[in-house]
């Protein structure tokens, strides 16, 4: 039975409503296009943006003199030779303008004596990170952009639309096919230009710092449509994700802002500082970069010097109650509600999947290899190379979102609606309409199993044996998944949604794992225990595409589409 499809038509389709997607929608609409902004959950509330706790790196020069070229230099150094330099430059050069625009829109960057405050963060050569107190950067950015989206003519919004596949035209992308979660029906969206702003892939990991809707959807959509991905082996682990005691109502990356403002000491189970043994003496300050920090913690745990729950201690016992209150106000009460008193005991932290440096291969106009397909935000690969600096993610979301909105609008104005290639709409609608019982597969359990495999074998420490074992698990799960979704196909069928999520997650997990297997060196966030040093022949980006159903890695990039 083929379910009857609903239809929509728009100039620009934006998939994902984090900062990148919302900014893209605003810019495309301001350029005179009709925009459809869709999200698989609510508009402007899920994704990674809303979870951002504090820092947004930008060369404003409000605190000390600064210039985008210094921010650019720091970004390239952190990227360990792999940054796509034009993309990094765009991020750093356009950052200040986007941040001032957000300020005009009322985001409320923290100020002292009228000047925007900028905090020092690891890897930056001067105080460069703006923020909204207290731990409110992400919610404030999301809310500000939601308000502007609501005030901008020409943007239609649709939540509960989970994109299943992009719609291919003969030479590019002509829109997308979605599963409408609140009815169960397929929706065919015809669009002159499509922007993928779906964020990253942290949901592939057991311990992650983002929303459950960050399962790498956009990477899978782009790959299946024929675009290339780049540097997918570079998954950033945030070193000091909260581990214990149990803490709810707070994002697990919240200790980052605490370290910015208060320093703090990382301790092993002998209550000794250890980062100096990994080349970085912290001396009560927060200077260790994310790749080195994650490595140092994993190695302490491996050597039997970890904390009871398998991480290390982070102590703020040097701080007085008054100092804590001044820095974090009401957050201290939220900690107390979780029975955490930082003046008395340290907490336990451990690396947590946080950000994907790799992503869809795109140029500075956010164009991909496929005409009509653009990308924005974390979905784009390359700007941060092998390791991202603190604070570059929200900047990237804003800058790349704005640029993608403008480019897609230019493209859409010169384009017509393309018919689909004669098969992609039908195939997607058939898939959404189909159903097969799967008595042997608990979809939620399968996701958990995949997450454990990725965490243990494709996490901060990797080896051929571990990566190969992960590939076997991925293979087995892919077999169990079959080629049709289970469930009754009626509204909000979670088992069915899990199936579509697993379809994407297993593909993206395979890409990350295979890319990690091929890169026989250690660089940035990619640490191979069996290849502990950086190799000159690997100072190269690695591209991945699908050819004849196979994942094909290559050091050569595919040509990008012409820009309007």
């Amino acid at each position: 039975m083929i379910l009857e499809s609903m239809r929509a038509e728009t100039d620009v389709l934006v998939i994902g409503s984090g900062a990148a997607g919302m900014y893209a929608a605003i810019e495309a609409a301001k350029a005179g296009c009709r925009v459809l902004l869709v999200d698989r959950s609510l508009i402007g509330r899920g994704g990674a943006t809303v979870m951002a706790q504090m820092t947004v790196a930008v060369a404003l020069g409000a605190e000390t003199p600064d210039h985008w070229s210094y921010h650019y230099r720091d970004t390239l150094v952190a990227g360990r030779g792999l940054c796509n330099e034009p993309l990094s430059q765009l991020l750093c050069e356009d950052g200040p303008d986007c941040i001032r625009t957000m300020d005009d829109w009322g985001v409320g960057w923290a100020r002292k004596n009228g000047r925007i405050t900028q905090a020092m963060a690891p890897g930056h050569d001067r105080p460069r990170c703006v923020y909204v107190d207290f731990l409110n950067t992400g919610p404030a950015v999301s809310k500000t952009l939601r308000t502007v989206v609501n005030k901008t003519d020409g943007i239609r919004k649709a939540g509960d639309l989970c994109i299943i596949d992009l719609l291919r035209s003969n030479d590019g992308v002509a829109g997308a096919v979605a599963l409408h979660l609140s009815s169960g029906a397929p929706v065919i969206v015809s669009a002159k230009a499509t922007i993928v702003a779906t964020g990253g892939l942290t949901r592939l990991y057991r311990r992650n710092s983002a929303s459950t809707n960050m399962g790498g959807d956009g990477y899978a959509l782009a790959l299946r449509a024929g675009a290339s991905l780049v540097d997918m082996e570079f998954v950033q682990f945030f070193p000091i994700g909260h581990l214990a005691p149990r803490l709810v109502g707070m994002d697990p990356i919240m200790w980052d802002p605490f370290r910015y403002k208060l320093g703090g000491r990382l301790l092993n189970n002998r209550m000794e500082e250890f980062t100096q043994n990994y080349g970085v003496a912290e001396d009560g300050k927060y200077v260790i970069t994310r790749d080195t920090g994650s490595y140092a913690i994993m190695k302490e745990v491996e050597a039997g010097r970890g904390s009871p729950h398998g991480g290390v201690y982070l102590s703020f016992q040097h701080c007085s109650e008054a100092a804590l209150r001044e820095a974090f106000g009401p957050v201290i009460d939220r900690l107390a509600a979780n029975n955490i008193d930082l003046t008395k005991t340290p907490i336990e932290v451990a690396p947590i999947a946080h950000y994907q440096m790799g992503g869809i291969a795109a140029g500075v106009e956010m164009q991909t290899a496929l005409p009509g397909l653009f990308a924005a935000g974390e979905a784009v690969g390359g700007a941060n190379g092998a390791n991202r600096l603190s604070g570059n993610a929200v900047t990237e979301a804003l800058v790349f979102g704005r640029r993608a909105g403008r480019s897609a609008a230019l493209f859409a104005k010169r384009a017509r609606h393309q018919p689909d290639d004669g098969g992609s709409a039908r195939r997607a609608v058939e898939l959404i309409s189909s159903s097969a019982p799967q008595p042997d597969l608990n979809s939620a359990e399968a996701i958990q199993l995949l997450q454990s495999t990725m965490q243990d074998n494709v996490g901060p420490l990797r080896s051929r044996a571990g990566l190969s074992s992960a590939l076997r698990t991925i293979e087995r799960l892919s077999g169990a998944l079959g080629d049709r979704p289970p469930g009754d196909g009626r509204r909000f069928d979670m088992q069915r949604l899990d199936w579509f999520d697993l379809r994407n997650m297993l593909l993206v997990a395979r890409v990350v794992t295979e890319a990690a297997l091929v890169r026989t060196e250690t660089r940035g966030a990619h640490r191979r225990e069996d290849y502990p040093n950086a190799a000159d022949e690997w100072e190269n980006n690695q591209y991945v595409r699908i050819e004849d159903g196979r994942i094909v890695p290559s050091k050569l990039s595919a040509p990008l589409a012409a820009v309007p």
Partner: protein
Amino acid sequence: MTETATLKIWRGLDIGAGRWETYAVPFESGQTILDGLRWIRINCDPTLAIRFSCINANACKECMIELDGKTVYACTARLQPREMTLAPLSNKKLVRDLVTEIAPPAERFAGS
């Protein structure tokens, strides 16, 4: 002996034709209602529907349900070792199980 939280959950697609299902969830101090619901999906029944994005950060605000008749966020309300009754929001249109239509009308899909 491990303690248990007994979750009595409203299930169904139509408010007039629902049923109550009861699940025994291992209780651990500090766990939340959402932890319990996710445990049920993984260990007992993946068809149980609950809307959430941010897991435990209370950032997305999507997981509102009724716990013993009072509106709570499932991600911050704590699990307790007793019987707890979970129902969809009674002032919102039901979608399925614990999921209701909480988006403003202007943010819902309407074809064109």
